[in-house]
């Protein structure tokens, strides 16, 4: 299997804190990976190491290159959106397209114009005249017109309204993603990306708390909505996490006997957000 990202003992230290703590990670091609963690968990630090934007300790290879040494060469096959609205504010749309075309060998002007045609952005617009959502659209149009193997999106939709966010992920999935490409996304809005992810990585205190495919997640985890009188019985089966909703108790189980649980109430597939909360609270205790 071809791995797009391979890390061994990846560590990132700042003066006093360890942002990424000895991570081992392998991401094969053709996946859409959600990198999810609370603020300050080390997501951005890990991504910066992967993109050659920061130094690190340990072994790291992205598309068989060392990102810290070969950022420029790596960027021919990797593209990223690190945060919303980081396009230069002084630039005009046509200038941005011309520069990207001159600098990036894998940029297709036609594709970019095609994506832009469906927006209200014109060639003569300056970036500073565009709304935040339009800047994100423009950036996505540029990025999607670049034929790369790995796309990294670090909070690409932060601060955008729901219409732009939906549209952003829809175009990404429909017009961009294919078997040869890998996308890594970090976001706080887990519920918006969970249906497009193929893999899930939870990161907590600089360590990986969970790394599994979405299919595995569905096999491994089950949520039980127990009637009040069955709550005690469910608790005895050692759930990962318990919460209460409208007087009903909801338990999250890992590798549990589903037949046994079914007797106690309704079974559901847990959503990523609930799984995340459960995993994080287990990590803290």
């Amino acid at each position, binding site marked *: 299997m071809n791995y797009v990202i391979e890390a061994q003992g990846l560590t990132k230290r*700042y003066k006093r804190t360890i942002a990424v703590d000895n991570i081992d990670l392998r991401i094969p091609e053709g996946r859409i990976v959600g990198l999810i963690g609370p603020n300050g968990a080390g997501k951005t630090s890990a991504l*910066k190491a992967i*993109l*050659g*934007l*920061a*130094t690190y300790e340990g072994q790291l290879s992205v598309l068989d290159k060392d990102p810290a040494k070969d*950022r*420029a*060469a*790596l*960027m*021919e096959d990797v*593209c*990223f*959106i*690190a*945060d919303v609205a*980081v*396009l*230069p*504010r*002084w*630039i*005009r749309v046509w*200038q941005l397209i*011309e*520069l*990207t075309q*001159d*600098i*990036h*060998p894998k940029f297709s002007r036609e594709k970019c114009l095609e994506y832009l045609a469906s927006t209200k952005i014109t060639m003569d617009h300056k970036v500073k005249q565009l709304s935040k959502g339009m800047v994100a659209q423009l*950036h996505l149009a540029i990025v999607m017109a670049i034929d790369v193997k790995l796309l990294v999106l670090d909070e690409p939709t932060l601060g955008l309204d729901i219409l732009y966010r939906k549209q952003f992920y829809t175009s990404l999935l429909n017009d961009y993603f294919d078997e040869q490409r890998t996308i890594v996304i970090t976001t706080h809005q887990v519920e918006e990306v969970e249906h497009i992810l193929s893999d899930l990585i939870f990161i907590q205190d600089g360590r990986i708390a969970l790394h599994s495919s979405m299919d595995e997640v569905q096999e491994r985890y089950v949520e039980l909505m127990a009637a009040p009188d069955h709550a005690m019985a469910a608790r005895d089966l050692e759930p990962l996490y318990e919460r209460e909703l409208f007087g009903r108790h909801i338990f999250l189980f890992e590798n549990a006997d589903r037949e046994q649980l079914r007797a106690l109430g309704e079974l559901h597939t847990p959503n990523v957000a609930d799984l995340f909360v459960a995993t994080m609270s287990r990590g803290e205790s």
Partner: protein
Amino acid sequence: MNRLPALIKREFWENKGALRTTPVVIGGLYIVVLLMSIITFQHFDNDFQSLKEAIAYLAQSDVELRNKIIHQSTMIGSFLFSLVLAFVVFFYLLGSLYDDRKDRSILFWKSLPASDTLTLVSKLLTAMVVAPFIFWVIYVITHITIMLISSIVVLALGENPWTLFLGIGNPFKGWSMVLVSYMCQSIWALPLYGWLMLVSAFAPRIPLLFATLPPVVFAVLQIWIEFLQTFTLKNNLFGVIGQWFANSPLIISADDHGKNDFGVALGIPVTSTFDHEVTVANMLDRLFSSQMLIGLVMATVFLAGALWLRHRATES
């Protein structure tokens, strides 16, 4: 690969106001002043009654002297361009590695496959070659326009502009002198350019302060300590910088150097061993001096530091 031209194009687009509009405004200023002085000539307190008389007098003057004056005024006409160019380049470099860190667009630029070294080179070349060249082109266009306007005025007053001034001087000589001085100055100024880029890559905010405060504090301390010890003011950083500036191969003064003769000189006269005459040899003399060698070493250190910082600009 056309990455370097693309990066330089980016610098031009981003700094169009400073690199293109500014010299155009200076050229316009020269032309407006020329037109105003033609119109108001008769009101000047002057030996001549009219412009017509003045031109007639000039037409009879010594051809050689006229030639010299035309050549030297060609060069001294570049003064305003040179002065403003220095300011433009100073502030351009001060912002060169700072602005995109401030507005975070560095994250976009670093997502393109252009190395930090190439980015740095594109900015340095913009300061050393592109900016002076644009200023020079507009200076030449301004000069041609001025000659055209003067010719029309002279023609209208019944004299022949060709025998009066067009035919006797070679403007290309003066123009190329100015261009050579700009290019020599770019090399001479490398330690300053390196320092400005280093500060630009380093300053967390207000790069102007970080560029000027350390040398000022250092020099003041130097002067103070020197004064406490010896009650004299010997060499200090201010002196070194002043000397460096005085030795620049820029055409920046017009005086007679005690020769009772109108002349154009390189820099401010500092030594009796150097005549400061504007010749290519005198300009190159500065570039092959031991001072220049020290300057190049400093520039290399500063630029290497700027590159190191640029590489780590996205760390936190």
